[in-house]
């Protein structure tokens, strides 16, 4: 299988790695870059655990071929905190007990960030639909939705 040399800005750092052409960006990030925050829950785009931002758009990295990332700017959960300062979403997930096992949490945080980037004041329904691509089997979503609401309030300065 052909391997491609990929240069991308990953969590703010210019990063170079080699990946087989048919491999997913998710596997490349995990195996080649060593960022295991994004998880594979399904490999078919149905669970959202591998969500990352590529050029400011959220997507499931399991459905992206690694070479597609060449030249892109990628944000994973590892890059969400800013110099040791947690993102408000991370802080609200912690304070609101919005995680149980935690496997889906990285994907939820990225998807929620993507939502709040676009819509700083979403309704509960808008949050639920925006996060419908992220499966959580532990929480029943209740505390996740509340944590996103709270983070949105904080980020709006309310």
């Amino acid at each position: 299988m052909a391997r491609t040399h990929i240069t991308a800005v990953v969590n703010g750092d210019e990063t170079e790695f080699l990946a087989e052409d048919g491999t997913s960006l998710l596997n490349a990030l995990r195996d080649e870059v060593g960022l295991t925050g994004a998880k594979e829950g399904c490999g078919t785009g149905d669970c959202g655990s591998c969500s990352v931002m590529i050029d400011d758009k959220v997507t499931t990295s399991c459905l992206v071929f690694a070479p597609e990332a060449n030249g892109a700017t990628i944000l994973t959960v590892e890059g969400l905190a800013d110099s040791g300062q947690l993102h408000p979403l991370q802080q609200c997930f912690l304070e609101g007990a919005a995680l149980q096992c935690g496997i889906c949490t990285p994907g939820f945080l990225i998807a929620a960030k993507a939502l709040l980037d676009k819509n700083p004041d979403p309704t509960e329904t808008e949050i639920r639909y925006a996060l419908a691509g992220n499966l959580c089997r532990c929480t029943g979503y209740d505390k996740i939705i509340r944590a996103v609401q709270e983070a949105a309030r904080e980020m709006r300065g309310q």
Partner: protein
Amino acid sequence: MAITEENPGYKWVGTRPIRPDGLEKVTGKAQFGADLMLPGMLFGKVVRSPHAHARIVSIDTTAAEAMVGVKAVITGSDFPDLAANGAHASDIDVASNAIAREKVLYEGHVVAAVAATTRDQAEAAAKAVEVTYEVLPHVLTVDEAMADGAPLLHEGMITKGVDPAPENPSNVASKILHERGDLDQGFGEAHVVVEREFTTKPVHQGYIEPHAAVADANTDGRAHIWCSSQGHFQMRAYSATVLGVSPGNLKVTAAEIGGGFGGKTVIYLEPLAVRLSQRAGRPVKLVMDRDEVFRATGPTSGTRIRVKMGVSEDGKITAAEVWMAYEAGAFSGSPVGAAGMTAIACYDIPNFVVEGYDVVCNKPRVAAYRAPGAPMAAFAVESVLDELARDIGMDPIDIRLANAAVEGTQASYGPKFPRIGFVETLEAIKDHPNYTADLGPNQGRGVSAGFWFNAGMMSSATVHINENGSATVVTGSPDIGGSRQSMALMAAEELGIPYESIKAVVADTETVGFNDVTGGSRVTLATGAAVVDACRIIVEDLRARAAKTWDVEVDQVEWVEGQAQHVEGTQPPLSLNDLAAKSGRTGGPISANASLNSRGVGAGFSTQLCDVEVDPETGVTRVVRYLTAQDAGRAISPDYVEGQMQGGVVQGIGWALNEEYIHNPDGVMENPSFLDYRIPVASDLPMIDCAIVEVPNPAHPYGVRGVGEVGIVPPMAAVGNAIRDAIDVRMTDLPMSPVRILEALNEQSD
């Protein structure tokens, strides 16, 4: 929140601080099963049966072994033949499920495994393993498996629990029976009798993290396994059995676990990874794809259940007759036993017969799933009870109150109940505004209740006091939903020091004493009790050290809010910090272990209220409002108690409405993906309102009962009863999918 007894002045227990492992989990640092990378690590891939039932004629691995990058290929013959060694039947089943020897018993059954230097090489090699099968006829449901002349999975299986024992083998592994009183008399006294038959499909625990294991074997027979499981001691025991080694030769480190719900109490990959690592001489990682998780790991049983119940005019249940058959999958061991014990356990019923059958069939071996066995039985019984209440015009909470088990009631499964909180959960629902909220067109409201034993079992804990007076609490119970927090909260309460100065960790099998699995709602109860015991040993030790320091008798020293105080106040208090800093002078490091086989399990009850809206033209049901009331005994960590309650409810809603295993006639699963195995998504749900009821368990230092499981028992009937209320149709088959609801509506209008 409904608290029935006042919090007796706890400082930490019952509060909502940030969990000890939270930071790692919101920053992506937490290491789950598939996250570990070791130098020189190989990737493995499992070869699985495409057939539901077949004899393995031959396995040819030569082509796979010759491929580039391939370092090891193993088959069943690489493991000891436990049957030939006269091992215990249940161990033989564990081994046969881990890798097939003569027959494959379900689609997805493991036949071989490979390890290679890259994922792609491993996948290619797995495809190159040539297996020749002689396909056998299969049975997929209890109906097929129990039919006369059905093909047999296990040719020597004689039904247990039948007297006299049957002469001929069958697919029925065992029969269970509970009875009391006189059924005929009971039904004779009834004003109304309702009888219904129900079916449920196998459903999967649906944890988001697929199974994963990394093994690194040494040449001396020892091996280190990293895996995400609900019990690394159990993984060690099972792996040792399958590999034929001493448990002491295996060290198992618990990775963070991405959900389990019972399904990660079973081994699948661990012994395969060890054997591959031994053959290859390098570490091996095995990770399942999602479709392997569905095809080959434990769903819970599909069932057929008949319930007949009678009530008097004033709503007293006079008799109940329950017949149930549970799919076990490929090996015996469905949860029909627990189903039989829990089916009518909420109620005080004078006359009953509960009869159940454990039936093998050609599907993956069932694994525990949250209150195993109870939800299906409750779906049937609580649906029939709803019909009875309607027939006699009684409020659904009132009819349950009229029959509710209380302290001293002789449970249907035998013993008398100690103090329990069922009535309190019913009252919590009745008192909640949701109970009288307005309903719109095509909306309906349903009530349902559930019981689960909860479990105790064995736990160990070690508590170390660090030199600055902070503490480390070490247990061997994998933290699946916030248990580190409850351990730390109880330790803070016992030691009288801030929660923030306690670190709670989960240690490997060589670092802490034995712990049974994280399951059965047992960790806060049993492992929590071990932590409390260890803390109390430490407090005793601290008092002794203070006494030594002051040159007084120990009974002159009290431990209050993290410091030693002289009872007469003649000495300045000695804080834990002071004692820890100078521990060398008073006897050395401050540390204690406690191990126990937990006693005093407290039963759990949950009552739930569901409002749905049904689109009568498409059969689509949406849950519009949901309330769950559950007796926690004591909510050590209310955030995570609510989380367990909400999570259980939502799994139940999925089970009620959409989740099911769909097999084609060849016994091949047709929906092994999160696209077509439809677990609830965020937009499917409302907020899940919680009423934590606290009727303390008298046998636990903090009154804990355990909260993980019972929440999944009532939802299916709660949803079904709400659908009945909305559109006048009684759904008796799960899932209550749009297709089934529209069929039922069409039948009704015909």
